[in-house]
């Protein structure tokens, strides 16, 4: 009985260790490539390596990145595409979320599901169909065509964020505003908008991050004049592995993490402000 009990307990501990080891391995699997790419960008030396105490750090690769007009052009293109795509996603997402929550749009789930559809379509297909369509209607070679394609992915997510933001705003607040003499627009402007502002910012950042990092659609739609940063990294990765690529990738990574951090802060702040 005693030994039996001990064996059982040991087995349980082993199982527990294995369980946590599994969790750790998955996390490592998810994060190690990111950290490697990030670390390499600081390695002083022409070859690829990780900086150590002996080698020290360098920002040379970042300097090289920002000195090369082609990389900077790519960064600028990425920025424009992101801004346009974010604007489209916010307008579409906010109007639809308003229609659903404030005007009881009929067939809400159907519209929501339809809008969600592109998220489940691989970027290659969206890229392909956007390319042939852009060529047909004369949008090919514009940053807007890339931004619209990105908005197909970003809009549904922005919509979901805004929908939950609007749902948290009690409709009675608008009725109260109306009873106090506020027109529907004034009620939106003074009551709803300030309360959903954190959600709007979060949605904007998510949309922007999606656009910033997407590259397959950009690969299909991009022309030499409209290369986004990820599209420029792509051939470099396949053919030569230079630390500048690591720096370029890390620029994207850093921009993304900053954006997410802002979003997380703002959303938490918003919750705190509403006393939740």
């Amino acid at each position, binding site marked *: 009985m005693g030994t039996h009990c001990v064996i059982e307990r040991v087995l349980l501990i082993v199982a527990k260790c294995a369980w946590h080891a599994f969790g750790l391995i998955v996390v490592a699997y998810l994060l190690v490539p990111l950290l490697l790419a990030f670390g390499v960008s600081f390695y002083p030396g022409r070859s690829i390596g990780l900086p150590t105490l002996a080698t020290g750090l360098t920002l040379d690769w970042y300097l090289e990145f920002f000195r090369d007009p082609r990389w900077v052009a790519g960064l600028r293109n990425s920025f424009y595409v992101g801004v346009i795509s974010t604007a489209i996603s916010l307008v579409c997402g906010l109007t639809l979320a308003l229609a659903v929550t404030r005007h009881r749009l009929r067939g809400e789930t159907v519209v929501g599901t339809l809008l969600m559809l592109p998220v489940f379509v691989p970027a290659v297909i969206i890229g392909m169909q956007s390319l042939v369509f852009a060529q047909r209607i004369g949008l090919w070679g514009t940053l807007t065509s890339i931004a619209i394609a990105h908005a197909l992915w970003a809009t549904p997510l922005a919509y979901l964020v805004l929908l939950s933001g609007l749902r948290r705003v009690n409709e009675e607040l608008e009725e*109260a505003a*109306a009873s106090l003499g506020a027109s529907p627009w004034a009620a939106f402007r003074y009551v709803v908008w300030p309360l959903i502002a954190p959600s709007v910012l979060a949605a904007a950042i998510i949309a922007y991050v999606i656009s910033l990092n997407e590259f397959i659609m950009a690969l299909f739609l991009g022309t030499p004049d409209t290369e986004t940063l990820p599209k420029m990294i792509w051939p470099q990765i396949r053919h030569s592995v230079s630390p500048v690529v690591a720096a370029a990738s890390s620029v994207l990574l850093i921009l993304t993490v900053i954006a997410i951090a802002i979003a997380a802060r703002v959303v938490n702040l918003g919750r705190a402000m509403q006393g939740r």
Partner: protein
Amino acid sequence: MLKLERVGMRFAGSVDAVVDLDLEVRAGEFMFLLGPSGSGKTTTLRMIAGFERATSGRIELNGRSIAEVPPHRRDVGMVFQRYALFPHFTVVENVAFGLKMRGMPEKERPRRVEEVLALVRLTGLEARFPDQLSGGQQQRVALARALAYRPALLLLDEPLANLDRRLRDEMRIELKRIQQQMGTTMLFVTHDQEEALTLGDRIAVMHQGRLEQLGTPLELYRKPATRFVASFIGDMNFLLAECMHASACGTKSTARLAIGGPDQEIAGRHPAGRRVVVCVRPERVVLRPTSGGGARTGVVKYAGFSGDSIRYAVALPTGAELLVREPALESKAGFSVGDAVALEWVDPVLNAFPE
């Protein structure tokens, strides 16, 4: 000043929420809409405020139909059950919002806000946000906000339902004081009959979307028009009886109670042979000691002392129970459980409704 004519509300695919409602609220009146949940009282309020569109009938405010007037152009204020304070505004900003929306010049607003905050006794809390206030304080802000721009009519949707009992009693007195001080016409929705009886100038009782009775608290209590009103307002005993004959003058009838005793006079003209329920208020019953048996007797099942009165539940031979409330007098010894009692009523004529 507010007039509803045959107003109806039908939601698609469900029963009628409000049916042919006629109602008139006089200027300066403190009017109550009283009814259980689902009686259509909140829907009625929302139609008056303009949040719902009546599917039939006519709503007039100061002689003008307001069917086509959007909520923000109606001169109607509203206090919500859950207050609906703007969480991102301070107390002052909340109260000033209506003034701003109605175009009061910025310079004049602080005085009005100060005035109305003093009226609801919130001076000193101006800079707080709603989530820094207690429930009672939030209630006062909601009231101040709705009163600030002096609407012609103030609607209140169960504004006290979320307060604890002590606060509620306090707020009732405050409300009455404010209403009298400002002279605002108020339409107050509640399911709490005590609230309506103690505060209301007049009460409209609603049930299943229909107006059951409109009258002063005393009228509703003394002369309920329907069986529903009789049971909803105050405690009421219903005694089974059979009508014997209608009296000559036509406003009274005679009935024989199932618990026996002499024939009972009842109000209204009922055909002979009809089964009716006869209404007796618990405080209108007088208990007398008896040796037991016989007509109009029962056995005390429960006796509870509650300060100024004693409540009894008396088991009747028919199997029903009769509630009795007697003043607790020092001169009179109470009854105990198991005592046999004889029943008498103070009123010679009782209300009765068809069963």
